[in-house]
């Protein structure tokens, strides 16, 4: 685990137009591990709530016979939250504006998240 590498990964994620911030979250305890976020984003709240969503999604996946959740996407009126699974219980979470390039971001998070470990 390397905070410098995390910072580079988060910089890559936040470089995409429309991304308000990106956070490395520990799903086990819902805490921020590392963050690169713009002003005005309550990263600790995002981490706490994102961890609940991820854990619920994992429960659903387990119940439906699919044991792994790789990516969770929550789309709301004012933006999107995407969480991508990394190693060691870490998740890469991005919070975006509504007009983000969602396809590109999903693809990028899917590539970046496994490098968190």
């Amino acid at each position, binding site marked *: 685990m390397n905070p410098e590498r995390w910072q580079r990964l988060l910089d890559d994620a936040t470089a995409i137009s429309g991304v308000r911030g990106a956070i490395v979250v520990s*799903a*086990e*305890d*819902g*805490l*921020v591990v590392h963050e690169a976020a713009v002003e005005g984003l309550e990263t*600790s*709240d995002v*981490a*706490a*709530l994102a*961890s*609940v969503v991820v*854990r619920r999604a994992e429960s659903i996946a387990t119940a439906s016979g699919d044991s792994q959740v790789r990516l969770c996407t929550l789309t709301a009126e004012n933006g999107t939250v995407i969480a991508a699974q990394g190693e060691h219980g870490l998740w890469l979470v991005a919070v975006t504006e509504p007009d983000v390039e969602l396809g590109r971001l999903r693809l990028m998070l899917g590539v970046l998240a496994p490098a968190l470990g």
Partner: protein
Amino acid sequence: MRVLEPWLAEPLGELVRESSARLALVMTSSGQVVGQHGFTRSLDVMAAAALGAGILATTGELARLVGSSSDFGAVVHHGAQQGVWLAGFDTPRGRWVALVVFGRNSTVGLVRMFFQRFAASVREVAPVPVPDREVLAEGFERELDASLRALFGGG
């Protein structure tokens, strides 16, 4: 859930509900219980309150020893099946302490978040403190009984 004063019920209920807490205890920094959720025996509440207040006092002293300008914000004990969140917060009635026990369906981050909202809510809705009344021996036992009935029910 039992509370000593009705205005505490809503914030405490929200904390318990939103953080999926198993047990919750709100007390003054001296260990006097003002609200609780999930405890069924008064002895358990009194022991938890005394231990919680003691732990927070101990860590506060530890913070002082290591040169911290204020006490630690919160103390978290994380077990395999459940965790304990213990934190002090300022209210118009003085410094209070919250103890939250949570299981694997919750997280430290979630409890932390809703604890912060709870503390802000208590600060907002807590009535202005009234001047201390003189405690008279003949009224003390009656008031203590009334407090225990409010917290645990029964006659």
